[in-house]
């Protein structure tokens, strides 16, 4: 083993969405501060497999903080104690020897547990399917430099577009609201010229789907912004509310 930290883990284990889960305690010994949090769990899992016990299931893929697949509520915080990081980019140097770490899945009615720490986030996909796009077909589009976009506008749209769809905002919110996630996509298009033609119908369709999925309402506590690993800002929510209100007041053709 490559390190000298010894930790106690309290991990949520749940066979599937039909059974009830519970916390099980594990020891993680010989952990190096250079390991990522998920590598620490790999070490624990290798140990479990060697003992013939089912490894702890969790979602992950890129391990670079970009795919949004990893999740985990760590000591009460989505993606753990460090600001602006995903779980896969969290390193064990953020913990200390002898510490107890409580690991839970995202908790939200719209994100049912699949197994252990893995949850079903397809509600997010369905919201995007409802309107998170520009209606253009492949081919026959204008030259990319045909419409200049001021750098400040492009940069702001980019900031909104960096949402990785992890769901930490929902997990952080006491109402399990998805407003930060939805507003990030709506903002990206509301800012760019390409998004203008369907600006209001998009906002309506995405918000309607968000409500259908059973996400809670927003009471402006700002917990989502504080836990978002890529720093999506609350101003997106304000923009979305504006878009949505305009959409309700006017029909698309009148709003323009």
């Amino acid at each position, binding site marked *: 083993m490559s390190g000298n930290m010894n930790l106690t883990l309290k991990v949520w284990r749940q066979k599937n969405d039909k059974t009830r889960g519970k916390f099980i305690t594990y020891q993680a010994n010989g952990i190096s501060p250079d390991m990522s949090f998920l590598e620490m769990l*790999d070490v624990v899992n290798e140990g479990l497999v060697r003992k013939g016990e089912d490894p702890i299931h969790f979602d992950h893929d890129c391990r670079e903080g970009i795919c949004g697949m990893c999740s985990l509520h760590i000591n009460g915080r989505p993606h753990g104690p460090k600001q602006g990081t995903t779980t896969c980019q969290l390193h064990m140097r953020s913990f200390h020897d002898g510490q107890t770490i409580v690991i839970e899945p995202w908790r939200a009615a719209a994100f049912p547990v699949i197994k252990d720490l893995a949850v079903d*986030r397809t509600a997010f996909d369905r919201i995007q*399917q409802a309107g998170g796009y520009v209606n253009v077909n492949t081919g026959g589009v204008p030259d990319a430099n045909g419409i200049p976009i001021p750098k400040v506008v492009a940069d702001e749209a980019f900031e909104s577009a960096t949402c990785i769809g992890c769901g930490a905002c929902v997990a952080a919110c006491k109402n399990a609201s998805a407003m930060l996630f939805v507003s990030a996509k709506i903002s990206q298009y509301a800012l760019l010229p*390409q998004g203008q033609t369907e600006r209001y119908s998009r906002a309506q369709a995405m918000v309607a789907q968000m409500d259908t999925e059973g996400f809670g309402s927003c009471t402006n506590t700002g917990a989502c912004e504080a836990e978002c690993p890529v720093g999506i800002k609350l101003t997106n929510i304000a923009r979305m509310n504006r878009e949505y209100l305009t959409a309700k007041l006017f029909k698309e053709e009148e709003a323009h």
Partner: protein
Amino acid sequence: MLDSKVPAGPLAEKWSKHKFNLKLVNPANKRKYTIIVVGTGLAGSSAAASLAELGYNVKAFCYQDSPRRAHSIAAQGGINAAKNYQNDGDSVFRLFYDTIKGGDYRAREANVHRLAEVSVNIIDQCVAQGVPFAREYGGLLDNRSFGGAQVSRTFYARGQTGQQLLLGAYSALNRQINNGKVKMYNRHEMLDLVTIDGHARGIITRNMVTGAIESHEGHAVLLCTGGYGNVFFLSTNAMGCNVTAAWRAHKRGAFFGNPCYTQIHPTCIPVTGDHQSKLTLMSESLRNDGRVWVPKTVELAQKLRKGELKISDIKEADRDYYLERKYPSFGNLVPRDVASRNAKEVVDEGRGVGASGIAVFLDFEDAIKRLGEDAVRAKYGNLFDMYYQITDENPYKQPMRIYPAVHYTMGGLWVDYNLMTTVPGLYALGECNFSDHGANRLGASALMQGLADGYFVIPYTVGDYLAGLGFDPVDKNHPNFEKTRKQVEDNVHKLLSLKGSKTVDDIHKKLGHIMWEYCGMARNEAGLIKAKGLIQALKKEFWSDVTVLGENEEMNQSLEKAGRVADFLELGELMVDDALNRRESCGGHFREESQTDEGEAKRDDENFRYVAAWEYQGEDQPETLHKEALEFENVKLTQRSYK
């Protein structure tokens, strides 16, 4: 003999002529066809969306919980296109030329030229979708330069180009899911291909939540399943990247092209210990402003490693900027294979840095002096943050430590000009095919290829095949569906019956070591022969002494891993065979027996100017080699030089 189906005529006219000659499916008839798309990265999402727009019914599959998480999301640096917006002399021909040369003259001319032609459409398409590329103050698109090119043709979105391009393609896919033209299957893994009368007619998948093993029928199957770099265990690929879909198709008759061509990327964060699960790339764009160096002497390097000297103690004159010294015209921007081999060389000499000595410096001190810290932050901020996050070292204050890591696989399923494999009706797009990058891929060209294949090539070529089929639905009661499904089920149960003493990761790590040691940055005959024996023994160990826990009827990550590693073991052996066969050096394939006096890769055009396409012959049988001769009518073959 393999028929590449490259159309006749002058290079620049081939694609337009071919498009005209391809058979069309009448708009009203398109809805009579179902196309299966496996994978939702840049290649798969763009293909699925574009085909659905045309009216085909599409079923799309991915193993992640959402199509947006395909590994393309992780690409950092950028995407090439011959727009010549910078007026610096770029053109379709120059992009074609750079790609052919960068690939060390082991790619097909016609494919590469087509790629360069459609590259300009890709950027237009992405912008129309709302992809927020970087812009200049005037509001026009910004460009940067990348390894292996002397013009600025790379479009980017900070250090997250892949993410933004994939979210664009994902949005187009979502639109078609909403329209009911694409049915999306998340958390489904393709485990086999179903053929009827030799034609691809469907796939078998495992639902990764319930374990259900199901068949899906379609008139054509598109594999867009990415690369197989994880055969090395450690790579910059996502943890789930695998060869399974491609490998099982290979076993059903699809030839595998150039399996030994692997790209080892020069700028990755070095390994810290054996707990390491993956390696992190630092985008090559960093080489635009970062300078690569190691101490001039072994003594200085030793002192640095032991902490007797600080980095700042090493005087300018004692620093060896070896790339700038050896390659004055390309400097730090030499292609990846050249940069990687040179890093290995200085480390092997004992001049490596960092505690392990297996790293070189990538230094931004000059860039920060020249441009200011803010400008450097604006360009590379998220990469610097990521480096800091992982290493706990601040790259604004001290140079990064980097070392090469496995990154990309140029090899893949052999396809003809239409992107069809040797199984009629089975296509391969994106990184999972072999076609456009020869023996070495240039930076920012994989994103380009994935989107070219999906948006602009397959929508034309697949129609030509379908138009010859008639309109009958695929017979889902054909016995081959049940037969193949049963085989998959038996294989799953065989894996679940393994109750030995090793974990799947134990075997995977061992395989990775063998591949890295003998089939990595440098290869030689004796080593390769040794590797072959080691892999065969490891395969036996896997099937006799590994343990796979749990049941099929649940989410079972042990089972998923075991299936993938079983395939990697077989692929590993084929890679070694291919590397043994190719007794020349070219691009990322460096055979120590074949080098120039200066230690550069030496091709043998007379004997090896061909694509090696391997045909599966059955369990533990040697595969048969087929050759596709490469003709170069538009470029002159020269020894690559970046001096």
